[in-house]
């Protein structure tokens, strides 16, 4: 028995057919909508948004350096990435889990194009992450105290991590047809994330982690960062695309485009990995520039009032607020200190991103150091440094101070501030307002004895005006080396300390 095949299609409308690519995009949109409404993804995005709203108002005390703030957008997208990885994996495994593979297998769209749609469905999640990253960064940039420049490559890391996580989830689904694989994979990934954020990023291997945070040091001028951020973005993009193309290959997409895609994206990821490893080692020029930035930084100096302010060019907008502090402290001083010309110079302790090195005090008279951070405790700290120079002549002398001049110094530093008592608390290392304590400043800390603390506290509790006149009237004696705390208290009209000065 044989049958004759008839060539002409018989009757039967077959409905409107679109192009395969149109169908692919339609499926990608369908899957993207589902992906963005999965519980883990929603929870992750809500947590991310909540974190931004909770974290950003107080970050960097309102004075971010944008070349540092851009990196701050990278950590939380990893959380979104984990949720997207697991959810994209479960979505790609849906036909296996619910037994529809057999049915879907005879539909017009081949399995590998379905996989492609799953890979594409991650893109909106990455775009939403980009929106969050952009929102967080814009918020930082719009703060009145913001300085410096962000890097697009640093900002791209977060969305790219989400993209890579999603495509890796799809790849895992095509390799292991079990829903346990993705959650289990996440555990080692978590270590990788923690390792990456905790590492110094000094070698190429640590840059293989999705996000390398590098924190702990001073904010640096953009030119000294030495982060291979662009290569890292290339590396992440390569991984994301390579995982997607491998998933297509694995799902049966064996055509030239897919094979070429695998080869190209693999090359991209490898190139990114190699180049970022090379970029992670500071070049001799960068090392030299960093050393110069510590020892003899190239600063841009401007005159404000009597004093000169020298800052890294990116920090130039901040000169005004420094000058405001200097002017207020100087206005409280008496004698020649009122008219003294100061040179405020910006300095950093170490020019890498992870060491928290102290800046040595300057011994030249009239020199005041200011760091790259500002806002919060940095303000009374700087104010103390200015007062120390006005009272003792130099930063170095201020650090060695242990007599009654400390009372005048602290009063100058604090009395102009909105809440002097709170400023006193914040400027002291142990957040106390009684007993002896270390007082922070941009360079070496000062030390206050218990008696000096008591006197300063009594002064700050009195109206500032009366004390101000006494300070000006007795300026010379108050700033005389060797003046006792008891004498200073007497001159300023408050009760003296219970015990005589003694500096350990």
């Amino acid at each position, binding site marked *: 028995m044989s049958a004759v095949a008839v060539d002409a299609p018989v009757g039967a409308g077959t409905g409107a057919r679109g192009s395969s690519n149109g169908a692919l995009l339609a499926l990608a949109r369908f899957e993207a909508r589902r992906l963005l409404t999965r519980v883990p993804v929603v929870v992750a995005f809500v947590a991310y948004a909540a974190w931004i709203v909770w974290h950003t108002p107080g970050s960097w005390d309102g004075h971010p350096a944008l070349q540092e703030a851009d990196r701050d957008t990278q950590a939380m997208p990893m959380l979104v990435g984990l949720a997207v990885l697991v959810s994209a994996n479960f979505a790609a495994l849906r036909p296996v889990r619910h037994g529809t593979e057999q049915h879907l297998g005879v539909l017009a769209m081949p399995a590998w194009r379905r996989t492609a749609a799953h890979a594409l469905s991650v893109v909106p999640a990455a775009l939403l992450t980009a929106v969050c990253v952009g929102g967080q960064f814009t918020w930082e940039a719009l703060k009145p105290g913001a300085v410096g420049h962000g890097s697009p490559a640093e900002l791209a890391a977060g969305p790219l991590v989400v993209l890579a996580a999603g495509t890796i989830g799809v790849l895992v689904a095509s390799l292991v047809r079990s829903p346990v694989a993705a959650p289990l994979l996440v*555990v080692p990934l978590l270590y990788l994330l923690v390792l990456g954020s905790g590492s110094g990023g000094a070698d190429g291997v640590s840059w293989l982690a999705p996000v390398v945070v590098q924190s702990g040091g001073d904010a640096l001028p953009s030119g000294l960062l030495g982060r291979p951020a662009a290569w890292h973005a290339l590396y992440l993009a390569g991984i994301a695309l390579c995982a997607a193309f491998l998933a297509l290959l694995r799902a049966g997409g064996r055509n030239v485009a897919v094979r070429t895609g695998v080869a190209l994206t693999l090359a991209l990821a490898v190139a990114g990995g190699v180049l970022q490893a090379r970029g992670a080692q500071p070049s001799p020029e960068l090392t030299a520039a960093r050393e110069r930035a510590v020892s003899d930084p190239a600063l841009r100096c401007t005159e404000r009032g009597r004093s000169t302010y020298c800052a890294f060019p990116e920090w130039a907008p901040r000169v005004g607020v420094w000058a405001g502090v200097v002017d207020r402290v100087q206005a409280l001083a008496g004698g020649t200190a009122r008219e003294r010309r100061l040179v405020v110079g910006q300095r950093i302790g170490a020019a890498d991103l992870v060491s928290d090195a102290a800046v040595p005090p300057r011994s030249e008279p009239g020199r005041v150091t200011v760091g790259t951070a500002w806002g919060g405790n940095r303000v009374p700290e700087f104010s103390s440094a200015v007062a120390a120079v006005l009272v003792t002549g130099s930063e170095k002398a201020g650090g060695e101070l242990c007599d009654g001049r400390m009372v005048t110094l602290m009063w100058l530093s604090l009395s102009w501030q909105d809440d002097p008592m709170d400023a006193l608390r914040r400027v002291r290392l142990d957040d106390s307002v009684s007993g002896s304590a270390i007082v922070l400043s941009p360079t070496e800390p000062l030390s206050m004895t218990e008696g000096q603390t008591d006197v300063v506290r009594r002064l700050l509790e009195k109206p500032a005006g009366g004390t101000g006149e006494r300070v000006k009237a007795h300026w010379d004696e108050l700033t005389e080396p060797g003046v006792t705390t008891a004498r200073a208290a007497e001159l300023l009209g408050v009760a003296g300390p219970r015990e005589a000065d003694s500096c350990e």
Partner: protein
Amino acid sequence: MRVAAVDLAGAVWRTLPRRVLAAAGALGLLIAAVPAATGAEPTPWQTLTLLRGVALTGALGLAFLLDDPARHLTAPVPVRRPVRQALRVALVAPLAALWWTAALLLVPSASRPPAGAITLEAAVVALLALAGAAAAVRLTEGARPGPAVAAALLLAAVLAPLSLPEDWALFVAPGDPRWAAAHDRWAVLLAGAVVAGAWCGPEPLGRRRWRGAG
């Protein structure tokens, strides 16, 4: 009766998601073996983190323990679901204990955290996974709650250390003064997980109850 119990245990054993459990167990041991294999000398904090990861891996496997594709078929059989679920747990428990002991022995002894405390943490995570699976079985119609429970567990494992307030800290380092208080909290969680798991055991009957005395 005894023969029946053995038969029942055998039957339940065959329904366990053994490959999932084996995969999770193997990965957990691999993680625990990393310092020994690489010759690294981790700090106590690193070892603790490692063991927490091992515990999480095991718990992810256990999230699949109550997956039962034949759930709707076996709903009305005389051996009630709590018994079958308890049997599943009982069959796995000795193996899990052995596995955890092996993991503890694999990490460098020099930096190993107090065994009792970290075992308590691991037990809580495992029981939370089981309670989550039991809750999913009780509250939904799904026969395989494993993936959803695993995803929830992961999310909780990532979010909890980030979002717990200072007063409720759970993930503290061995030298931390809050170590003892944190483990009191872990013990409370343990009790909570056990109660929740037990409550979720019976077949869901909704608001309807069988009438008549037991």
